[in-house]
């Protein structure tokens, strides 16, 4: 909302510096986006009288004029009469005209702030021109550049300051609209002026025309008959229409153009300008129709107008030139035959006021804000009228605004008031309801100790009616404050007018009860610390993915929640698992020159098959890790499958998180849609299901680890040496909460013995099966009071015998009672080997 300070000053006193005012507006009304000082823009422009005009000796279209500036401009060449010579190309220039002169040194206002054009004395085709005479367009008042602007103010004389005469010595304060969403009155200068008075703790008095109930002509007119349509939809609380005849369409007086152009509205003609001016002043949109055109659009029963809901398939050509097909929920203004305007949004082109208009119908109505909003959204039309109607204007202002506009039309356009019609508003227009609130209620919420009297003053300054009843304020809002409903609204009002900057600051008191911790967040932080300390990089990717990525990784799009309105095609679906998002980031980083890296993300996934207790899509917290190395690095650094690199990170994670008991089962996990989507990118020959034991007997699947399908590798250009895992974090959190006992082992005073055992086993025997069996056997047969640990040393396969492999394990054993002999350890290992032979056919080497 662009606010002219001079316009504000028409309604209230401002006697603080502009900077201070802007600061106060920011603190007590709404954020100021920009303040533009117009004084500089119009500096030095002088009102002059054209004394003589003669044809330019060297140019057909130019005139050489002398002008009278009252002799006030210094340093300019004058003739013997004291007049100044200016060359002018405007066709309308003539002796006797009062015009705006831009002397040398002045800036052309329309170029101000862009690419400033500063005038000088220079020769134009051999004749010196001292500055220039300006058109309305050059003065940034309107688009009119057909000739120089003839000044219309009777009181002005040569030498007067142009800016002062038209109040252009102004500041434009642009206040952000967003904070006025609930304040219909602040979309008008009058409302802003009232608040500016209020925040200066100064009483405001609305102009009489705005508070007094107006009287309209009631006699039946001889010309300009009009009827309102009998019924109106409930979405139209009030509809007023006036007939005015004898209208002379012409440009508005300069003072009016000046108000409009300063606040960013383009002047068009006096009638349209008046409707805009009144709207900008009062926040009530108005619309003028050409009476004869409405008559032509009416049926045989005379001229009829009124609001109704549009009919299916009905069409309307708007002032913007666009023809729209109306919806049955759109409110239109119509005659008994056709729709002529889209109510609250825009007029129609068929009834537009033009230069031939002699009589007008002026509409001043109130529409349901939601209906207007729906219509605006439906047709993509966002006008100044929509901005105001969608904030909930008061229907109680229609008659006052109508009267004010009619008076202006009489003054400025020579109009004759013929008839003013109003709907039957019985039972529709309700007076404001008073809010009862105590000083304690207000003070408790602001942390203040204001008296009821102090509160009442603040409110009365902005024209609330306040009655004091002991500790209670009975506050009746003025009709324009449709936003006031509850006591908390008074807290805001009083706090704001008092000044939030003045509130005493005080932290809430609390006792020493610690807030409950969030184990999931703690676990995630732990995971991040563990992985990052192991050289992995955390990244974040979007929660949404392109359908292509789901396809490339073999996931089923039908399982994913789909966005219906995303601006970008990259955001079609909620992701079904985390792994594809990470795989998508591998190739770009390889290309950027990273030979090997581990990336991970902690995020949320969804699946249409899974609902939570609220009936909403269940949210699954996941950790995914991907390790990759390009061919060069992989060949130099690693042999064997990339799988084991991912497994190294998995093992680290479980060790550091204190979840020892996990196991890896060959192959992909099975389950419903959720698990299918999880497993989808992974290749079954090189993947394992990750399980953790919640107890000795109960194991649950918590994720997957493995390498990726060749098709996935190809589609996402992954290096062959790539592997990863994805885990469900809440399952880990549960396991972690149960894995409480310490794994600490008491230290022994006796030396530890280590011995290796090599076993030749069938090639397809799972390492874990061997290890767990050996662990079990060793536990059974080891001497009492000993602690053992078995670690892998080597896994070897002879090229000539691919049916077997050799596994070498290292047994470390220590006793708390004595030093163990080699013989004892040997026999322990021999017995273990025998057991392995019996179970797996293993041969000790």
């Amino acid at each position, binding site marked *: 909302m662009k606010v002219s300070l001079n316009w504000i000053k028409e309604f209230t006193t401002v006697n603080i510096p502009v900077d201070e005012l802007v600061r106060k507006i920011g603190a007590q009304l709404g*954020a100021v986006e920009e303040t533009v000082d117009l004084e500089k823009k119009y500096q030095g422009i002088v009102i002059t009288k054209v004394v003589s005009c003669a044809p330019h000796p060297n140019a057909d279209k130019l005139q050489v004029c002398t002008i009278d500036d009252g002799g006030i401009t210094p340093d300019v060449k004058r003739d013997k009469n004291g007049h100044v010579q200016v060359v002018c190309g405007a066709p309308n220039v003539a002796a006797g005209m009062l015009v705006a002169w831009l002397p040398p040194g002045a800036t052309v206002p329309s170029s101000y702030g862009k690419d400033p054009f500063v005038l000088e004395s220079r020769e134009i085709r051999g004749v010196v021109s001292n500055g220039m005479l300006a058109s309305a367009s050059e003065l940034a008042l309107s688009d009119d550049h057909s000739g120089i602007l003839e000044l219309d103010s009777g009181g002005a004389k040569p030498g007067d300051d142009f800016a002062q005469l038209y109040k252009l010595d102004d500041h434009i304060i642009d206040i952000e609209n967003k904070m006025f969403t609930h304040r219909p009155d602040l979309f008008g200068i009058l409302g802003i002026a009232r608040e500016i008075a209020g925040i200066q703790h100064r009483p405001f008095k609305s102009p009489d025309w705005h508070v007094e109930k107006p009287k309209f002509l009631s006699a039946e007119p001889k010309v300009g008959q009009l009827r309102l349509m009998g019924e109106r939809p409930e979405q139209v609380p009030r509809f007023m229409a006036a007939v005015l005849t004898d209208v002379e369409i012409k440009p508005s007086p300069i003072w009016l153009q000046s108000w409009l152009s300063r606040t960013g509205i383009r002047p068009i003609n006096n009638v349209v300008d008046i409707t805009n001016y009144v709207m900008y002043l009062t926040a009530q949109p108005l619309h003028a129709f050409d009476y004869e055109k409405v008559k032509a659009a009416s049926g045989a029963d005379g001229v009829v107008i009124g609001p109704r809901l549009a009919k299916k398939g009905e069409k309307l050509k708007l002032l913007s030139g666009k023809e729209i097909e109306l919806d049955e929920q759109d409110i239109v203004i119509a005659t008994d035959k056709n729709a002529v305007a889209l109510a609250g949004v825009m007029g129609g082109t068929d009834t537009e006021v033009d230069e031939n208009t002699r009589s007008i119908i002026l509409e001043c109505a109130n529409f349901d804000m939601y209906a207007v909003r729906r219509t605006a959204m439906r047709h993509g039309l966002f006008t100044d009228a929509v901005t105001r109607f969608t904030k909930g204007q008061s229907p109680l202002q229609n008659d006052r605004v109508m009267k004010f506009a009619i008076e202006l039309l009489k003054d400025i356009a020579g109009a004759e008031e013929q008839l003013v019609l109003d709907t039957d508003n019985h039972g529709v227009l309700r007076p404001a309801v008073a809010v009862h609130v105590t000083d304690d209620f207000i003070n408790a919420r602001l942390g203040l100790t204001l008296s009821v009297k102090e509160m009442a003053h603040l409110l009365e300054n902005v024209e609330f009616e306040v009655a004091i009843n002991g500790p209670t304020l009975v506050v009746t809002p003025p009709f324009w404050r449709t936003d006031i409903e509850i006591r908390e609204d008074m807290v805001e009002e009083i706090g704001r007018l008092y000044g939030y900057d003045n509130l005493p600051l005080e*932290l809430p008191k609390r006792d020493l009860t610690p807030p409950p911790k969030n184990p999931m967040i703690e676990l995630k932080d732990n995971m991040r610390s563990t992985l990052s300390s192991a050289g992995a990089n955390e990244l*974040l990717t979007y929660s949404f993915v392109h359908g292509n990525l789901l396809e490339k990784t073999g996931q089923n799009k039908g399982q994913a929640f789909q966005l219906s309105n995303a601006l970008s095609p990259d955001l079609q679906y909620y992701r079904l698992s985390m792994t594809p998002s990470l795989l998508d980031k591998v190739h770009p980083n390889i290309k950027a020159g990273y030979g090997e890296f581990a990336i991970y993300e902690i995020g949320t996934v969804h699946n249409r098959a899974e609902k939570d207790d609220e009936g909403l899509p269940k949210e699954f917290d996941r950790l995914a890790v991907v390790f990759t190395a390009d061919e060069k690095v992989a060949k130099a650094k690693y042999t064997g499958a990339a799988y084991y690199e991912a497994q190294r990170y998995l093992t680290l994670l479980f060790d550091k998180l204190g979840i020892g008991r996990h196991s890896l089962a060959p192959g992909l996990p099975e389950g419903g849609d959720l698990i299918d989507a999880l497993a989808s990118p992974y290749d079954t020959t090189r993947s394992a299901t990750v399980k953790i034991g919640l107890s000795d007997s109960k194991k649950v699947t918590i994720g997957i680890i493995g390498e990726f399908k060749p098709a996935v590798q190809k589609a996402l250009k992954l290096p062959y040496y790539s592997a990863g895992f994805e885990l469900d974090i809440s399952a880990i959190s549960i396991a972690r909460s149960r894995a409480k006992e310490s794994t600490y082992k008491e230290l022994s005073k006796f030396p530890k013995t280590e011995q290796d055992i090599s076993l030749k086993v069938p090639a397809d025997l799972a390492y874990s099966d061997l290890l767990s069996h050996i662990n079990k056997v060793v536990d059974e047969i080891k001497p009492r009071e000993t602690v053992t640990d078995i670690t892998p040393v080597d896994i070897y396969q002879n090229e000539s015998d691919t049916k077997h492999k050799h596994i070498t394990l290292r047994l470390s054993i220590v006793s708390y009672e004595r030093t163990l002999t080699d013989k004892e350890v040997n026999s322990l290992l021999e017995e273990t080997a025998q057991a392995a032979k019996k179970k797996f056919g293993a041969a000790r080497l």
Partner: protein
Amino acid sequence: MSYQNTEIAKAAEVLKKRLNELENKSDIIKDNELKALYARIPMLPDGERAAFGKEINTLKAELLELAGQDDEPHKKLEPIDVTAPFDINTEPDKRPRLLASDLGSKHPITSEIEILSDIAMRMGMEVVKSRQIDDDWHMFTSLNFPEEHPARDDYDTFITTEGLIAPAHTSTMQNRIISARKDRLATGQAISVLVPDRVFRNEDLDARHEHTFHQHEGVYVGTGVHVGQLLATLKTFLQEYFGKSLEIKTQPFYFPFTEPSFEFAVSCPFCSKQGCRVCGEGWIEILGCGLIHPNVLKMAGVDPTIYTGFAWGGGVERLVMIKHNIDDVRYFMSGKLDFLRQFA
């Protein structure tokens, strides 16, 4: 590709021709011409079988490649023992190992969330996560946004085909947070929660706009909670965050879920209000806040005549960008190691 065996060479020509006419190119390996060749193998004399079989396989591979169904884009994945700690025949120095610790990094956004959460916890707040899909009721209605209210226009929300919403603010959790803890109020304890999480707005991407970003949301409900406490809490929180004493400034604002509502700014911690590249004119607008609207408390089952509360919501990206002088918000979600490893 030329084939030694004339039978195969002839079949190859036929098959390649048919391939061109096929709609589903990979169907070419089901072609009878190819099957017939395979059927010939057992009938061939011992000496010829191997060479013939090899040529058929070559032909099949060629056809598949032509069909865009490259059978082996990478090394064929041979089964491995997934329960073993390393692969067969790997030398100790070629076994899997972790990357160097100094390469690792946490994402600057999650790091910042950890910092904010830590401050909140020290101030006595719980930390709770938000949702990534929610319903209209939590996102709008429970926050006192009337149906079709223009205030909803300020949130360009992503909507799913079912009409669910990708939350545009962490306030989508307010109702759940308050109602789950309302019993605490009767015991004299306050509800005091921070929600730092991901939010979404349906915007086009550029250096300053992301459709996916992070907010930190504070919710505090108790007895006698007032605006002065809100401002003091935020001032304390942000002074702790920036590690300096700050001035504060509020601007009235409108949010349907708070009354009154504010935009909250602090004096620039980098230039002491002199005006600099970060702040422009001495102040940094850092979050929106206000006293929780009585309707929001009511909908969460809390009596607003007894209890009052405040809430705030601010962006995390902005804080990180200010801290590290990052000029493009898109880097955060880019997954670029060039970016991420700078936060090692």
